[in-house]
């Protein structure tokens, strides 16, 4: 059974159909890269998985539990439980500016998971080491570079022990020389078999790290497949045109 099953996802803003019958599965340990032109519905699709957007039709099933089935959402506490299996990393980091790095990591486990302090602190220490920011524990996010902020945002998501991590253009707001450090952390997560869906413009990352690429255009999945296959031998004209533009 797939870890994430999405079928016939539909969403529109007024007359604009942003998602038209989106269907795909994600298996455990998959790293899925979602690519496509801007405005094609990638963010909307990703955000609907974690209930930041409400869809108008279709189903989303996360490890056997329906977040929404045929357009009908589960009860709020069910939704909360189901979405808690996922973490999300945003383009603009969305760190809490009034909290230190350490507090950013520890707030949610404390308030939501109600774990023992010792366990929370052990994990935040371990994760800060992992992202190479142990020395920054007591700094406020305003003092960090973009790349550091995004690494902290990834660690903050990991603090909740998600089964799945969603990334929405995690490196698009970064100066080019800072994308490497973030991609490095994501690569490491992939090697540790974290299940990830990554909306990205980084074709290098998609090729190198993803085991599946989904190409979206105009609210539809045009094609999906293994990166070597999709990048070297795209079946559809739209895919070819997009790849030609973005691999330049």
């Amino acid at each position, binding site marked *: 059974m797939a870890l994430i099953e999405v079928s016939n996802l539909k969403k529109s803003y007024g007359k604009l159909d942003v998602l038209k019958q989106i269907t795909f599965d994600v298996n455990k340990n998959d790293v899925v890269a979602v690519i496509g032109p801007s405005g094609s519905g990638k963010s909307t699709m990703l955000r609907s998985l*974690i*209930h*930041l957007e409400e869809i108008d039709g279709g189903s989303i099933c996360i490890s056997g539990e329906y977040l929404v089935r045929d357009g009908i959402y589960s009860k709020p506490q069910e939704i*909360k439980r189901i*979405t*808690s299996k*996922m*973490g*999300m990393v*945003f383009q*603009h980091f*969305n*760190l*809490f*500016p*009034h*909290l230190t790095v350490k507090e950013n990591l520890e*707030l*949610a486990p404390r*308030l*939501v*998971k109600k774990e023992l302090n010792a366990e929370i602190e052990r994990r935040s220490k371990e994760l800060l080491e992992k992202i190479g920011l142990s020395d920054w524990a007591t700094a*406020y*996010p*305003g*003092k960090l570079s973009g790349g550091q902020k995004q690494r902290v945002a990834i660690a*903050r*998501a990991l603090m*909740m022990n998600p089964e799945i991590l969603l990334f929405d253009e995690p490196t698009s707001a970064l100066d080019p020389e800072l994308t490497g450090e973030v991609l490095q952390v994501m690569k490491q997560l992939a090697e540790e078999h974290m299940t990830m869906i990554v909306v990205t413009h980084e074709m290098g990352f998609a090729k190198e790290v993803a085991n599946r690429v989904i190409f979206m255009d105009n609210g539809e999945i045009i094609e999906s497949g293994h990166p070597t296959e999709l990048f070297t031998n795209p079946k559809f004209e739209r895919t070819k045109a997009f790849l030609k533009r973005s691999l330049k």
Partner: protein
Amino acid sequence: MSINYFISILKPMLEGAQMTVLLFLIAIVLSIPLGFVLTLAVRSSFKPVSWFAQIYIYVMRGTPLLLQLLFICFGLPMLPVIGDYLVLDRFVAACLGFTLNYAAYFAEIFRGGLMAIDKGQYEAAQVLGLNKWQTMTRIILPQMFRIALPAVANESVTLVKDTALLYAVAVPELLHYAQTVVNRDFTIVPFFIAGIIYLILTLLLTVLFKWLEQRFKFD
């Protein structure tokens, strides 16, 4: 001018300044929470509450504070039937007027603070599993108060100076004593003393708020 004379006029003025400070403290302590409640009311999804709060803020900000004070002190007792029960002590009436008026200004300041918070903050809180209450108290309000701090500081300094309006409703405060001496002794010294006392008060406030801003700085 003898030192004795100086002390003799300074003493009542300092007593008047106590009244000024007392009004300031009462008004600020009451109007900030009330202003915050108004902010929440404006954002209420229950429309009548939101409308009421918006009209309240509009009226309070759109009419002179002096008019409001005169209304509470002299207008309310003239109302038919209930007027007799609305004769308030002048100082109490003034505190009420200042609180009701300043609450509207603070409400606008807090509303601005809330609007300045990126929606990504709510989204981050949501995906981390925080509920509405936790999001408000742990994420949004601390940022709102921090953002609002400079504007609150400004408004507080204005409040100190506005206390001089007590003069108009005949509550003896700093300016009242200054004016009395000016008339009696035909000297302008009390005006300078009054000015200096106001400057000291606003300076103390400014220093306090600078300290608060520093204390809650997070970048």
